[in-house]
């Protein structure tokens, strides 16, 4: 057997499974988005000539959810990068018990989203959660963190930031550790202060890691599902509903598989944006050997 044949054979099982689980559903969703498949058609796919896509463009709920998803992703990813960078810088400094600190800080990321979403539901509870208990003890009126349409999305952002900042911090910490210490020392000998080092050395060398964290978090945040589903269920009044939650509802609550697939494909298209931006950026920046 030739080397090439052997290598292909070794890769085949994994690649086949990947194709079945990634490509098949995507292609199926693309196909279904051009068909009517709901209770009305008896769950049989009937071609409907792009009616799903026309409905999508006029669907105010979809447009609202798209905006809400973008808003959620933009704000939470920005916060995660900022806080993650700060946390990474903190964890990078040598200190006693750094390993334990890392493990403890990492905990929120390791917990199931559903578990921690439940936790936040209790903490933000009106009137019995600790925040509101504190407010009422101070003689202030309690606040419906999860029941006020204008602000509840901020609660979802906070919960997401709480959970994924450690992950971003860990990625950036890896980047920090890859920066040779002698570079920092050389800059120090030039008389550079901490801020200069951060701006002129750390951040530029960290750029690939920041890019990776940004890409990964953006993709995940645009597809946010678990958190919203458990923390708010998309409410109040649909004010926190994301595209993925909407697609899930269309398919499994209203059993409209054709339209659900269309919403999924639209979300997928949204995902391609950061992907393309990444590719462009990669070509523009000189390739660094990380």
């Amino acid at each position, binding site marked *: 057997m030739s080397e090439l044949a052997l290598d292909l054979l070794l890769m085949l099982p994994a690649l086949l499974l990947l194709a079945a689980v990634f490509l098949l559903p995507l292609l199926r969703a693309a196909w279904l988005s051009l068909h009517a498949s709901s209770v009305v058609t008896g769950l049989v796919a009937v071609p409907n000539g792009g009616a799903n896509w026309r409905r999508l463009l006029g669907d105010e709920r979809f447009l609202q959810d798209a905006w809400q998803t973008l808003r959620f992703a933009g704000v939470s990813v920005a916060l995660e990068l900022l806080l993650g960078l700060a946390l990474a810088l903190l964890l990078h400094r040598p200190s006693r018990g750094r390993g334990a600190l890392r493990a*403890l800080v990492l905990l929120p990321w390791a917990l199931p989203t559903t578990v921690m979403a439940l936790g936040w539901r209790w*903490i933000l509870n009106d009137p019995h959660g600790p925040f509101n208990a504190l407010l009422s003890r101070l003689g202030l009126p309690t606040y419906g963190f999860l029941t006020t349409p204008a602000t509840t999305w901020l609660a979802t952002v906070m919960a997401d930031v709480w959970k994924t900042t450690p992950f971003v911090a860990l990625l950036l910490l890896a980047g920090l550790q890859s920066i040779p210490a002698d570079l920092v020392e050389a800059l120090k000998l030039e008389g550079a202060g901490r801020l200069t080092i951060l701006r002129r050395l750390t951040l530029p060398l960290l750029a690939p890691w920041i890019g990776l964290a940004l890409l990964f978090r953006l993709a995940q945040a645009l597809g946010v599902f678990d958190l919203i589903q458990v923390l708010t269920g998309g409410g109040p009044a649909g004010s926190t509903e994301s595209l993925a939650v909407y697609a899930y509802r269309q398919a499994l609550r209203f059993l409209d598989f054709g339209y659900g697939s269309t919403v999924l494909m639209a979300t997928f298209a949204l995902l391609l944006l950061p992907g393309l931006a990444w590719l462009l950026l990669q070509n523009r920046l000189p390739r660094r050997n990380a």
Partner: protein
Amino acid sequence: MRLLALLWSLGPLLWQLHTSLLPPEALVGQGPAGAAAWTLANYRLVLAGDPPLWRSLLNSALVGGGTTALTLLLALPCAYALQRRRGPLAWGVGAALLAAALFPTVLLFLGLLELARTFHLGNNLAALCLPYTALALPLAILLLRAAIADLPPELEDAARLEGMGLGMRVRAVLLPLLAPALASTAILTFLFSWNEYPIALTWISRVDRLTLPTAMARLAGSSVFTVPYGAFAAATVLGSLPLLLLVLVAQRWIVRGLTQGAVKG
């Protein structure tokens, strides 16, 4: 600063722990909840519930174990071949794997649901390992490929000169040297599987087959107004405990695994 970071990440968890130990009356009563005596009543409640929570924990552990084993089994040969092979094929596969690793899996749930229906895989914990394995594979392959790339190539050359075949090289050289990387890959895979929600939600409907995240969500969805928060808290603590132990014990490997994947990915 450190204290702040700790408070930020641990505060909510500690609060859950505290809540889980309070008697139900203290939760809705006015006044300082901390004054009430701690009790294990909530734990008794969830563990005796229908279905009992330990059932979901067990299910999650089974799926996690199966997924981890299957993932390593498939990822290692693929990573090995991928690392050996240079050129456009390997580059393309690598790029596709990176894209897949970044992909939000929720977008696949509809198609996967249909696959489950077509092949009658619903409510089958063993079958659930298949999509889980596939979803964990991209990261696992990238991590292992990076680890293999870090091994000195002369070691394998030396083994070849000794006349060792592929199987023997894998057993006597590759596996022992890759042990740390395999450990971190296994832990990350297990974490993913333990936490996965959307696919479990669509594949599993029988209550005695629910995995932990779905059981949790079911608790949450049971009633919007009279939510038994004490039971909730007890459930979250029980559901977090295995992970807490895992993270504390395996912190080093998790960090190393993520770091390596990031550098080489």
